[in-house]
């Protein structure tokens, strides 16, 4: 590169350097986790965080998985993702369809009722929920999370699905009715299949939120066999606080599913999360 060229492109070079420095800062924590999770404790103490591992120790993962109970936490979170998330989205879609297509004077107020739910702080309803769950006899176990988690996701999901259903032409519904389709049939056979992209987006967003939710699970779950991944991670740290290597192996295990979703389904994620903030 000649000097004049360099002089002309130095602002560009600065921009690249600034962005590169930021990317490194953003990635450092993940590098720390990854390097720490595969080395021995002695290696970590004597050589520091950033040294290349002197010996690979994959046993950290095995110990975190079985001794740290991660297999159980993982299972519980997966159960929630594949039962609670679809259930919540179904309930939200049903309500959203009614709100989008019902010609009904209370339509607006009902919608606001759902949206105001967004503004009720979690900690206000947490203790009464615990009492309710105790009365139902399911406090402390996994089922206690279902109502709280469904409610948690409803307002946003209804908001998105109502907007989506409104874009679908009413002629489709009229045509289906003429062919003898019931209201539920219209919803199930026509509206839902047409909304698959929106449903996938909602599924991914809610699955990630469910995977990461800590506060509600911390209060409502007590049995060790019912813990979800974030609460398990916290408890894990209590037991293994000085064993950084196993702890980071546990962190790696809990991040991998998110990384997988993030890499392969990113376009759904970005479109869904920015839907509220950007006009299409």
């Amino acid at each position: 590169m000649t000097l004049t060229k360099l002089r002309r492109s130095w602002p560009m070079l600065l921009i690249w350097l600034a962005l590169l420095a930021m990317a490194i800062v953003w990635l450092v924590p993940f590098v720390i986790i990854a390097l720490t999770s595969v080395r021995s404790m002695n290696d970590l103490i004597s050589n520091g965080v950033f040294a290349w591992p002197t010996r690979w120790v994959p046993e950290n993962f095995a110990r975190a998985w079985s001794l740290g109970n991660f297999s159980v936490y993982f299972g519980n979170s997966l159960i929630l993702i594949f039962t609670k998330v679809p259930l919540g989205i179904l309930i939200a879609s049903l309500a959203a369809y009614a709100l989008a297509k019902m010609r009904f004077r209370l339509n607006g107020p009902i919608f606001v009722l759902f949206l105001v739910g967004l503004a009720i702080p979690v900690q206000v309803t947490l203790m009464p929920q615990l009492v309710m769950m105790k009365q139902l006899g399911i406090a402390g176990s996994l089922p206690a999370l279902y109502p709280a988690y469904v409610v948690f996701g409803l307002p946003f999901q209804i908001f998105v699905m109502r907007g989506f259903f409104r874009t679908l032409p009413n002629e489709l519904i009229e045509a289906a009715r003429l062919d003898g389709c019931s209201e539920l049939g219209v919803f199930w056979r026509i509206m839902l299949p047409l909304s698959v992209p929106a449903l996938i987006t909602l599924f991914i967003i809610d699955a990630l939120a469910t995977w990461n939710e800590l506060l509600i699970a911390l209060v409502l779950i007590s049995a060790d066999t019912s813990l979800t991944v974030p609460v398990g991670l916290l408890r894990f740290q209590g037991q293994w606080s000085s064993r950084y290597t196993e702890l980071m192996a546990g962190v790696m295990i809990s991040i991998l599913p998110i990384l997988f979703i993030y890499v392969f389904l990113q376009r759904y994620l970005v479109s869904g999360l920015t839907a509220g903030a950007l006009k299409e």
Partner: protein
Amino acid sequence: VNLNKIHSALPLGDTPQQSLSSAVRRWLSQNGTLLLMALPGMLVLFTFSYLPLPGIVLAFKDYKAAQGIFGSEWVGFNNFTYLFSTGIAWRIIRNTLFINSLFIVANLLMSLSVAVLLHEVYDHFVSRIYQAVLFFPYFVSFVIVGYFTFILFSTEGGFINNSLQGLGLAPMRWFTEPSYWPVILMGVNLWHSLGYFTIIYLAGIIGINPEYYEAARIDGANKWAEITRITLPLIRPLIIINVLLAIGRIFFANLDLFINVIRDQGSLLSTSDVIDTYVLRSLTTLGNFNMASAAGLFQALVGFGLVVLSNWIVRRSDADQALF
């Protein structure tokens, strides 16, 4: 044969009662199924979000477990008076507003700068990779974010203290120094959410018609002029709406961030105890339901007022962007 349809097709009934019942029936035949479809959602929301709300009366009572919520004695505004006269209220309100303001300013300045810089990087592939790196922390659990912070700032063997010692400097006792933590929290929050705002602003910038830039270049504008005269003015509505929505939530702290990063450490509470952490601590460790309800109610009322106000302002500037 749908009897309701036939009924409703007939001229309205002879007596008022008949006409009323047939009108109701007609309405139900049109909307009944739809109403039924909305019912599960309404029931769940009502039971688990609205039904607990009467518990708020505790804010005006002296709660005794033996007497129950509704049997406990009324004390008027005593709980609120206590919160404000002891200075607790001022401390948690000041911390909440100060830390959230830091978050809003830092997020705005950094995400706008990164978005503008990224726009200058013509390489689409690099830009995509970069956004992916920046956005990923948004999806990482705050439990893990809390670990990072601990590993970085831990006094013994923490990454920062090790580096300081490596450079021949004295290690710092981060966890006994409350004045550092608003800034540390700002950094952690920035790391977590910068990608989200960057993507929003970048999408706004990409949507700008490239002809504006071409025209400016022909007129001899430099990069700085392009950014300040074209890019920023054109995405101004987007900026205003995002900032207004954030201001609307300024009374609510990100509880997950605080419980995992601060971990209820008494030495840091003077600068990092926010309304949400105070309410949670009163409920769980202190067992003081009166104060929890009073602070919670105060936050809900002021916070909800701010949400409505900011939404009203957003609606005035651009109705499509309003939440409700």
